[in-house]
């Protein structure tokens, strides 16, 4: 069958199981937008390519499938840079398809030309420039294979306009030929046995669960391992929902704004069982004083993560699900031989005490301004089974802390890159991928203003979700650092409670706009928002600008020096190596 490159592109996307593409057309991608009309694939017309990219990410986070974004050459591709970098840092499987100027003028500074493969080389898992339509289908095939297998990540395919128009014979390659790409997925059994020996010898073990467990869809397997082995669990910012927060073995989130029990359990542990986690600086604090007594079992699909920040006593390269299943089987077998898990009642009792004595806390005065934590907690009480998407800043930390997660893929955020503006487009993508679920973006007022235009997309494409703006009139997280580390010298962090009027802006976008100004409004406003199902809703929670996120381990400090509340603040300087949130 003779087809154009553009037709072949959509036939290939259909073969890959793509249901939805987020994008914006333009000159160099025009040929591809024509066969789109006849395709089964749904196109969601975003208002900014960054929105399309984050929507593809949100879709991938929520569904586990590969998200797809499409853009034109030059400025279109350049607008995808942030989502691609975000997806690289957080191992999110997306494929970006960009138009390129025709091959004869590539390199000529033609109109809307940008060397997008050059620009995105360090922020993609791989990228391709397709110079001949005869290679297009196998390239698309390879792109999806690379994006979704091994350590997932973003792949960009750049297709010059003449290649989209070139006529070829359709052929679907059965095999993907990538001689240099053979990810190790099966964990080594000898290593698994070594790991189980360490687990059985450990008096103070902690399962340190990272985003890899979510990516591997291994939450059920993790549950069995934790419960049968009586192993307490911390879930990182990337892994919230991998283990139910209400379980007695759950310690919550570790790291810079982690719970006392989670942070301290890792510090005092004699064994860390890291599953799909990468010993990120936001988790370890000062590396030299992190978990000083702990041996380390490190399970990761990416060999480059093992030993990168912390040496591993037992390294296991493999897919988290495969390795967890093997660990569980071996642990169960050995425990049956020795009559059950070792007695770790003292350790578990200590953890229980830490959880009891140092819970997350805040105070909501009945006559005072709304505390952000209160708004988030009330949202949780009303919509426990929602998918929560967050921006970056204080509200992100509070959302992660105060939402009680029980299911994987119900928490979506920008962890590694910390991309403000992530929430609204990612919520759009999540809602498009999971129409059966309620999606709630918990966003900052600063973040909201970076990508709010996708509310228009939500209205016109009928993809409703709720946005809860934690409006503290500030770039709150930066304000917090200035309060703590710059002697309260506030520099360029004030935004305003009133500008823009979030409720009016919502209405202008065709959404329902609501506002809560006092603690007693909160429940009613949330109920009202939840009663709307045919449109998106924006709630403007007018919150206390002074509230700070605690606990906190200042950047570069040791996790031993965790600060539990404002009363423990000692004047310190911003350490030079520590970037802002």
């Amino acid at each position: 069958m003779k087809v154009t490159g553009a037709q072949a592109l959509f036939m290939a996307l259909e073969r890959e199981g793509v249901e939805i593409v987020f994008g914006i057309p333009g000159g160099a991608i025009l040929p591809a937008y024509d066969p789109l009309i006849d395709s089964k694939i749904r196109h969601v017309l975003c208002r900014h390519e960054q929105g399309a990219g984050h929507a593809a990410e949100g879709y991938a986070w929520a569904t586990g499938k590969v998200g797809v974004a499409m853009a034109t050459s030059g400025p279109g591709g350049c607008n995808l840079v942030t989502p691609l970098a975000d997806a690289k840092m957080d191992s999110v499987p997306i494929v970006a398809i960009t138009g390129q100027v025709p091959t004869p003028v590539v390199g000529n500074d033609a109109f809307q030309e940008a060397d997008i493969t050059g620009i995105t080389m360090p922020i993609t898992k791989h990228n391709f420039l397709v110079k001949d339509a005869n290679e297009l289908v196998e390239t698309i095939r390879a792109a999806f294979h690379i994006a979704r297998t091994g350590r997932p990540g973003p792949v960009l395919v750049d297709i010059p306009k003449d290649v989209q128009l070139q006529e070829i014979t359709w052929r679907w390659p059965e095999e993907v030929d990538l001689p240099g790409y053979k990810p190790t997925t099966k964990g080594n059994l000898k290593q698994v046995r070594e790991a189980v020996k360490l687990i059985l010898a450990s008096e103070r073990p902690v399962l340190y669960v990272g985003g890899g467990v979510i990516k591997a869809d291994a939450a059920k397997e993790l549950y069995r391992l934790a419960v049968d082995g009586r192993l307490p669990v911390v879930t990182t910012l990337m892994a919230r929902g991998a283990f139910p927060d209400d379980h007695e073995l759950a310690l919550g989130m570790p790291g810079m704004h982690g719970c006392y029990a989670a942070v301290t359990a890792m510090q005092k542990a004699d064994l860390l069982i890291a599953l799909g986690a990468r010993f990120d600086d936001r988790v370890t604090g000062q590396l030299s004083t992190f978990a000083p007594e702990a041996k380390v079992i490190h399970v990761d699909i990416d060999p480059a993560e093992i030993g990168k920040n912390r040496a591993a006593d037992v390294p296991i390269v493999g897919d988290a699900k495969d390795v967890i299943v093997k660990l569980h089987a071996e642990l169960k077998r050995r425990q049956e031989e020795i009559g059950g898990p070792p007695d770790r009642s003292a350790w578990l009792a200590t953890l229980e005490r830490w959880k009891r004595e140092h819970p997350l806390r805040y105070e909501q005065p009945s006559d005072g301004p709304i505390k952000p934590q209160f708004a988030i907690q009330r949202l949780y009480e009303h919509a426990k089974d929602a998918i929560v998407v967050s921006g970056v800043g204080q509200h992100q930390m509070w959302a992660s802390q105060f939402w009680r997660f029980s299911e994987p893929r119900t928490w979506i955020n920008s962890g590694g890159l910390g991309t403000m503006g992530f929430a609204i487009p990612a919520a759009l993508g999540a809602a498009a991928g999971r129409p059966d679920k309620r999606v709630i973006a918990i966003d900052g007022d600063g973040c909201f203003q970076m990508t709010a235009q996708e509310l228009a997309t939500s209205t016109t494409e009928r993809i409703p979700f709720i946005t809860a703006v934690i409006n503290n009139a500030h770039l709150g997280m930066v304000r917090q650092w200035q309060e703590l580390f710059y002697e309260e010298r506030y520099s360029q962090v004030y935004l305003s409670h009133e500008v823009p009027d979030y409720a009016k802006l919502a209405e202008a976008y065709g959404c329902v706009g609501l506002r809560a100004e006092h603690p007693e409004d909160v429940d009613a406003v949330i109920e009202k928002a939840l009663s709307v199902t045919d449109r998106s809703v924006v709630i403007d929670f007018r919150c206390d600008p002074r509230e700070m996120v605690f606990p906190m381990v200042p950047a570069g400090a040791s996790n031993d020096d965790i600060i539990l509340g404002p009363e423990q603040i000692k004047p310190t300087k911003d350490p030079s190596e520590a970037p802002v949130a």
Partner: protein
Amino acid sequence: MSANGNGKRLHTISVLVEDKPGVLTRVAGLFAARGFNIDSLAVGPTAEPGLSRMTIVVQVDRKPLEQVVKQLNKLINVIKIVELEPGEAVERELMLVKVRAEGETRARVLEICDVFRVRVLDVTHKTLTIEGTGTPEKLQALLELLRDFGIVELARTGRIALARGDAGIRDRGRRLKAVGEREAE
């Protein structure tokens, strides 16, 4: 093998890559992004169509080297990486050097060429252009001597190397891998 004050050592790594557009940029970019200076990098085709070999010399500690190698391994177009230890590999470099050689100095330059068994490729009234092949150490020694006469220009290919013995990079070469990856096989 030379070492500098930081305890860093020169490492020669041989990288088998698919001959795809951009592969050199990807490899070089990775070194740059991780903050490593490349001492030399030589690329050329191999006996297998579609495959090239890069010989890269870097000065780093063992641990960062491992990290870079693991990152290199993640590049889709990289097929295999081996580190070539000094004693276990043959190493060569080619250089072309144009040196001032007028009047009575000419005889002295020619004498040095003789001792080093290197060839003169071009002669003018004022200069000699010399082709030097050998181990990087030998070329370094030669350059030191020629420097006294005045070097007009210099071009070096960078080091290329192959492991001694029967095995090629494909069959037996010690591939540098993550600890865990090694266990996994």
